[in-house]
């Protein structure tokens, strides 16, 4: 190689080194794990993988791809866990969580939890960048341990109730219709999961939604009032009486609806699923609207939100909202009991398409895909 080439290569390498220079952040001290002393779970391993933290100008950028191994130190089987993720000064007034539902971890056994996050924040310096703590653990007897700052108790319990409902359903199908019937049922579940439209959704609780990149440049889409239709589940304890939202293009604003408790127990929390249909006739679940105040037995209430919701297909393009429908997805009573749709309620084809599958149904379909029918049967008989 000539001297000229060697020198040129040296210049190139020096330039590359100079460009690559960014001060890095010590990730081991940047991540803090906080588990209470009496925690039923203990951390047995932490792998930061290819995580990296860098300081760029006035900003800190953290890309974390970590894996934790947790050990069940309790005497009960763990059915679900939620970890609270706090990124000091990073989140604009918010926090994150990583939950693992549909578990069945025996005492003494270990299981992994993946932690993948990205954050950008001003470089204020000092203190751990990310703090991970235990928000809650649900056991097989539906008892709960944890701070419950994120209402993990409710979400973990709902997932566990859905898991029991779906396992029971598949076991009944196996017993009544045999292996062929179970195959048909699991393939139908697989089909429903595959056919769900993929949409990206944004929410602003207050204020104006920032303009979308694909919004029309010249047309101002005027708001129009749109009434909800309601999808009734025979077993639902709450009726939706009337409701509307302001709709403009791909945005639904300030949804409000009148609800009535049909039950003789008061309700602490309920959620309404919001389904949107676009001009092409595609219908999808855009989000849920929670009601977080007490709804008296046989009482009525007005559920009102100021938020704006925007949907767009994951594959690109734009949705023009043509109609809206609502349905009850879950209810938590004041006595801490719950209502979820039954498999019978979900037999309605439209509701079957809109209501999300339970994590357990997704896990069982994945097991069938990977290991086949006999593995699924063994799992159901476990």
């Amino acid at each position, binding site marked *: *190689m000539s001297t000229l*080439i060697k020198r040129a290569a040296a210049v*190139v390498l020096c*330039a590359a080194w100079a*460009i690559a220079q960014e001060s890095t952040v010590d990730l081991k001290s940047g991540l803090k794990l906080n588990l209470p002393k009496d925690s039923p779970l203990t951390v047995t391993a932490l792998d930061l993988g290819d995580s990296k933290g860098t300081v*760029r*100008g*006035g*900003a800190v950028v953290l890309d974390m791809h970590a894996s934790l191994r947790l050990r069940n130190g309790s005497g009960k089987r763990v059915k679900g866990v939620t970890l609270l*993720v706090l*990124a000091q000064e*990073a*989140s*604009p*007034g*918010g*926090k*994150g*969580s*990583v*939950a*693992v*539902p*549909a578990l069945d971890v025996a005492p003494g056994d270990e299981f*992994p*939890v*993946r932690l*993948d*996050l*990205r*954050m*950008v*924040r*001003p470089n204020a310096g000092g203190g751990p960048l990310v703090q991970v703590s235990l928000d809650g653990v649900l056991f097989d007897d539906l008892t709960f341990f944890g701070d419950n700052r*994120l209402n993990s108790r409710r979400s973990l319990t709902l997932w566990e109730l859905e898991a029991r409902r779906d396992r029971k359903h598949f076991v009944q199908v196996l017993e009544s219709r045999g292996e062929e019937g179970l195959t048909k049922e699991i393939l139908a579940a697989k089909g429903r999961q595959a056919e769900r439209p993929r949409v*990206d*959704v*944004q*929410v602003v*609780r*207050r*204020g*104006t*939604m*920032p303009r979308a990149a694909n919004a029309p440049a010249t047309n101002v889409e005027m708001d129009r009032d749109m009434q909800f239709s309601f999808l009734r589940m025979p077993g639902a304890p709450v009726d939706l009486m009337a409701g509307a939202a302001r709709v403009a293009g791909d945005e639904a604003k300030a*949804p409000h609806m009148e609800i009535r408790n049909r039950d003789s127990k008061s309700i602490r929390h309920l*959620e309404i699923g919001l389904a949107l249909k676009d001009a092409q006739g595609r219908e999808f679940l*855009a*989000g*849920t*609207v*929670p009601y977080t105040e007490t709804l008296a037995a046989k009482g009525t209430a007005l559920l009102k*939100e100021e938020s704006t919701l925007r949907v767009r297909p*994951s594959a690109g393009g734009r949705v023009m909202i043509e109609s809206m429908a609502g349905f009850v997805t879950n209810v938590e009573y004041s006595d801490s009991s719950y209502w979820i749709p039954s498999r019978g309620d979900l037999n309605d084809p439209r509701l079957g398409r809109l209501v*999300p599958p339970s*994590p357990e149904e*997704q*896990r069982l379909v*994945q*097991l069938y895909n990977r290991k086949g029918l006999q593995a699924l049967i063994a799992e159901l008989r476990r």
Partner: protein
Amino acid sequence: MKHPSIQELALFAGRDLPLWTRWRTARHVSGCEQCQREVRAFSEVPRAAMAESGAMPPGVDWNVLAAEMRANIHLGLEASEAIRAYDSKQDEHRYPSLSWKAAAVGTAFAGLLMFGYWMGAMKKQEAIAVMRAPEPVVIEASAGGVGLSDGRKTLKLTAPSETRRADLVSVSTGGSAGARYIDEETGQVTVNNVYLD
């Protein structure tokens, strides 16, 4: 009957037609008196020309003149050949050749400069983003993950890998967003959520 053209008859008379056309024209001429007359007339033209050459000015020999003209034509042809050869050599050496190594280094350096410019622009953009006044917090659930952003600070819980997409996303107008992933190997379900305070 179709007669050969007058040009064909002239060339036939001078024995300048190609073989097949000559045979065809000969067959026609042998049976056509009119064409025979034309051919005879054309055949007499060289003899008339020879007679004319005898009337050239005194001291001018047509044969010498023709030889000189041929020599001049040859000279012209050779000169133009020489000029063409010189021009093509000039074209070859007009631009200096670049070795492949130098070209590779040059390309890499240009690429590096562009990459450096892009990196600098990205850093500046991020620095500007964190200095800006906050916008309304947008909560987003997409195939790539869930996040909160006010245009200044961002918190995003991402997919376990860049190739993985969320199997299910959801938002709540209460101020949260969730994305569900299934590990293809273990079947373990992970649900990432962000919440606005």
